């Protein structure tokens, strides 16, 4: 936490000559989920706002729900004035915060790719150990059949991990889709989701992005999502050297990355793409054959 550590440094510089009670101990461990109190709580846009409405919902909004309204900002200028408003579909950005679905999707993401290569040899695979070491009776020692039994030093392992194991499983498609919707809604509700008109930056300097984030109090880590295979060169160069600011295409959006990065930035085209993809699952027929095979009405 760079803000909290700045306070510690300033306090320790002040208190070095005065061993008083205000000196912070050097081995102080603060919890990592402290929210920056200086984070501006910009209220959601009021109904009578003078800024233009830049985007309306394409899909049909149910009658009992109203679209979510948010500010649309810009990355080109350092000052924090929004450009306009945008309306987001409530079935994607205002679903109930289902933490159990988030947990399920997160554990699925961690485990379905997991291959454990832990492997041990059993007594028949360890080199040697075919001969009986001494005769059964008469030698006074305990009876043994081979020198590689699990009782012996250097012998095989009886019930150890066996070979590469996989932990693959798939969650139902609708659960994964709902996980994405819940993650987006949670980020929106906690005001960590920001909408931007485009990703054009004046300079490829990574310091510009850091100053922008610090000025707008967006958080420590930022995830930038954009549709399309090509990004502006400036932002690619700026994020290439930064660790906590990452840019991904919209196809790569997932719950783990959204939870790992504190703030998420979406462009207007990304929102259209996400709404289109995520809302289709609410009203689709169950597949008779996998979706990757051609359907007549689905591209």
């Amino acid at each position, binding site marked *: 936490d760079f803000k909290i550590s700045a306070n510690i440094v300033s306090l320790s510089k002040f208190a070095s000559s005065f061993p008083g009670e205000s000196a912070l101990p050097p081995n102080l461990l603060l919890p990592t989920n402290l929210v920056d109190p200086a984070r501006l709580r910009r209220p959601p846009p009021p109904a009578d706002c003078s800024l233009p409405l830049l985007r309306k919902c394409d899909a049909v909004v149910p009658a009992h729900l109203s679209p979510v309204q948010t500010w649309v900002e810009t990355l080109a200028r350092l000052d924090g004035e929004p450009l306009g408003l945008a309306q987001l579909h409530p079935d994607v950005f205002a679903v109930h915060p289902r933490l159990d679905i988030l947990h399920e999707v997160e554990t699925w993401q961690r485990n379905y*790719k997991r*291959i454990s290569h832990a492997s041990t040899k059993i007594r028949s695979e360890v080199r040697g150990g075919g001969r009986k070491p001494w005769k059964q009776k008469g030698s006074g020692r305990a009876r043994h059949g081979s020198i590689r039994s699990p009782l012996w030093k250097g012998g095989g392992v009886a019930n150890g991990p066996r*070979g590469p194991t996989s932990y693959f499983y798939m969650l139902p498609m609708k659960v994964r889709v709902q996980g*994405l919707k819940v993650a987006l809604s949670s980020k929106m509700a906690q005001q960590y989701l920001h909408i931007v008109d485009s990703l054009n930056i004046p300079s490829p300097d990574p310091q510009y992005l850091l100053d922008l984030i610090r000025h707008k109090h967006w958080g420590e880590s930022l995830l930038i999502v954009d549709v399309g295979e090509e990004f502006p060169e400036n932002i690619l160069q700026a994020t290439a050297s930064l660790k906590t600011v990452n840019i991904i295409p919209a*196809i790569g959006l997932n719950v*783990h990355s959204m939870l*790992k990065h504190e703030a998420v930035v979406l462009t207007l085209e990304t929102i259209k*793409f996400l709404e289109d993809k*995520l809302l289709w699952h609410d009203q689709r027929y169950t597949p008779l054959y996998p979706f990757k095979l051609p359907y007549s009405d689905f591209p």
Partner: protein
Amino acid sequence: MAVLGGLLKAGASFCQSAATLLHTARTISTGTCCQIRMHAIPQLKKVDRWTEKRSMYGVYDNIGILGDFKAHPKDLIVAPCWLKAFKGNELQRLIRKKKMVGDRMMTLDKHNLEKRIRFLYRRFNRTGKHR
């Protein structure tokens, strides 16, 4: 020594005056050799939470849902070919390995694999409650 302490405790319950003299609460072990010896509290290992692998973990996991179903997340798994998008117990994994890779395995490994399959088949299907 612990037995003696127990006897003394039992004896003290009869005479209450002796109970105050005996403080037989031992909270440490009196084993002879302590294998782990430390001169100081060890420092926490420093883990960088923002390496390339950690910050990009999980990207493209929803490539099916968000990418028109042209690819499946099971295509992303880095694994031996007999374990890609497959989960099973040891016998099932070994049978699949023999089916897919068996003809290009080394002779010793193939022999061990066959022995293990034979053992596990007999173990699962002929012994125990579930057969």
